[in-house]
């Protein structure tokens, strides 16, 4: 795990050190220029002074500096006075024997006795002398070095101190982040309450907001899972409880009518439970099924007649199938289409309380089909929810499982069809429409057929 504190520290400390080094370099260069200037001025001054003194008395040559003499800051300047005919008229003590002077006036850098010198020369034609004053460049460098050393030494001491300060400050600065982390770490896995970001700094707030939004999503998913589990448990265990209770009634009843009633209820419950099991298996199968399986040309009308014939409908319900559907051929999984049609038809039959008609019809303008029942319809807010697993809406049928529309929707997706539920506009009832986005009219014999969806017959 990388530590933000360590990372910042290793960014800040070199950055600070680099700035220090730049400052030192700058000071070094600046001081050096200044020092050169100051020392040059001193050479010039001294030369002028000597010049004004020269000729006003006897001058004697001082002994030359002995070899190996350590030249300290004392006796930095060496002075020589040469006559035009090349005689050394005078020199200061410690000045080299070799000539420092040059022919023309002004500054020059010269090598004298294997050493670099900075020399200022005054040529006095009237007196017939050259005055040369110089100092060693090495000495100048040492001055600058000492100056810089004086600057760098505290810096070297200060940088560890600065490092410590930066480290502590980072700790304090990152405290809010650690507080948030601490709060989350100390939580149980069940705790999905939002983290309070009221006192968090602005930089952490987006992170807290993102975390809270994630917590919210996880919580919603878990709630949904819990709901499905609860619904599933309820839908599976309630019929079992009914079966067991009725069986115990049938065993305990001495009255024949009571016993027969209980046995009849057991039969009803077994039928419903087997349907629930069948639907659960269909769901499991659909979930495991690849998207395009068993591509075949399927005649919708024929399949629909099969579905309607297989489901016994009470005499009060009249089923009408649009003859145009007999000309509708689909390319796709026959099994999935069968599941869609069967579950939509079961749903329609189940919600028809009173005598009425279920109409299966072609939707020629969109190349799909629809079924309309005369049941109670679905309250608008529930239209989006009824395709959820085990969701049984307000107008639930007493024998429903809450899975039929879920299966219809899933199976429709497998054959690339959209299932849309809406309440009928012309009367009370539900309309379920199946449409294909790659729409090609099923009756129109001209256009090329899409890969999936209605084919021209």
């Amino acid at each position, binding site marked *: 795990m990388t530590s933000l504190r360590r990372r910042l520290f290793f960014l800040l400390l070199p950055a600070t050190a680099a700035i220090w080094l730049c400052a030192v370099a700058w000071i070094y260069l600046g001081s050096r220029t200044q020092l050169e200037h100051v020392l040059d001025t001193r050479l010039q001054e001294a030369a002028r002074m000597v010049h004004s003194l020269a000729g006003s008395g006897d001058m004697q040559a001082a002994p030359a500096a002995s070899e190996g003499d350590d030249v300290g800051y004392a006796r930095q300047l060496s002075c020589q006075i040469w006559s035009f005919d090349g005689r050394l008229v005078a020199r200061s003590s410690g000045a080299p024997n070799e000539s420092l002077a040059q022919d023309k006036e002004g500054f020059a850098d010269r090598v004298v006795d294997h050493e670099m010198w900075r020399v200022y020369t005054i040529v006095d034609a009237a007196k017939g002398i050259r005055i040369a004053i110089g100092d060693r460049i090495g000495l100048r460098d040492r001055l600058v070095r000492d100056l810089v050393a004086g600057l760098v030494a505290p810096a070297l001491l200060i940088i560890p101190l600065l490092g410590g300060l930066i480290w502590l400050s980072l700790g304090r600065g990152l405290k809010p982040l650690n507080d948030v982390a601490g709060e989350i770490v100390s939580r149980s896995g069940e705790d999905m309450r939002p983290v309070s970001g009221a006192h968090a700094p602005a930089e952490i707030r987006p992170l807290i907001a993102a975390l809270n939004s994630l917590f919210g999503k996880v919580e919603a998913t878990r709630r949904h899972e819990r709901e499905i589990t*609860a619904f599933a448990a*309820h839908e599976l*265990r*309630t019929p079992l409880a009914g*079966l067991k*209770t009725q069986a115990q*009634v049938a065993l305990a009843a001495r009255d024949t009518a*009571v016993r027969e009633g209980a046995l009849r209820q057991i039969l009803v*419950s077994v039928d419903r439970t087997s349907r629930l099991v069948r639907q659960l298996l269909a769901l499991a199968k659909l979930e495991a099924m690849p998207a395009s399986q068993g591509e075949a040309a399927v005649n919708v009308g024929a399949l629909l007649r099969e579905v309607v014939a297989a489901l016994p409908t009470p005499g009060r319900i009249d089923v009408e199938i649009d003859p145009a559907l007999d000309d509708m051929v689909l390319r796709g999984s026959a099994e999935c289409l069968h599941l869609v049609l069967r579950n939509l038809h079961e749903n329609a039959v189940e919600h028809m309380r009173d005598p009425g008609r279920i109409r299966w019809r072609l939707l020629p303008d969109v190349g799909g089909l629809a079924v309309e029942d005369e049941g109670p319809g679905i309250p608008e807010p529930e239209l989006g929810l009824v395709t959820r697993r085990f969701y049984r809406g307000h107008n639930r049928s007493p024998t429903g499982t809450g899975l039929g529309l879920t299966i219809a929707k899933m199976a429709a997706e497998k054959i690339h069809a959209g299932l849309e539920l809406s309440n009928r506009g012309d009367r009370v009832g539900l309309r379920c429409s199946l449409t294909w986005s790659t729409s090609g009219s099923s009756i129109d014999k001209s256009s090329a057929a899409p890969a999936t969806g209605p084919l021209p017959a």
Partner: protein
Amino acid sequence: MRVLVVEDDPVLSDGLQAGLGLAGVTVDRVDSCADAQAALAATRFDAVVLDVMLLDGSGLDVLADLRRRGDTTPVLLLTALDDIADRVHGLDTGADDYLGKPFDLDELAARLRALVRRRAGRSDPLLKAGGIVLDPSTLTVTVEGRPVAASRREVAVLSALMERPGVVRSRAEIEDRLYGWHEEVESNAVEVHIHNLRAKIGREAIETVRGLGYRIRMPS
């Protein structure tokens, strides 16, 4: 005993009515929260059997509402969820007991008897008055140790009197215990049952209090 069953599965609900009926319980059935609220507001039940998941909401909301109103009717929850958190939540909402589905009918009946017994402040499962002993679990009556053959309706009338010894029970109260909403009340039925009971357990065992109702005689 009169019990309200709140359950939206018709087969289970029917089974409870028939099965508890065999155990001498008068059962009224509703299948939604709204109907349960209405029934509880209108009728006094000895206990409620309440499914948690209903057509129009959660049985726990009905329960919470009942307790908010200060109604102390014992409630037994039927739940398909049997994880501990779910049970704890149910009990803490004010349930007195719960059973997970599927359950045993005899156990449900026994639990209901226990709830009703506790509510009346009794711990003895047998109802006793003088030499008369009524066993609610078997619906049998003995007088001085001799078994007495009594019909289910007669036993129901006798237990209504014996549950509150010395207290006068009106005819209407006794009728409430005998008949659910779906049953037609036969006129004079209570008088007929009292008459038959007196013949079986002794004329003096049941007193008539003029204008008020009937009372089981306690030995002084």
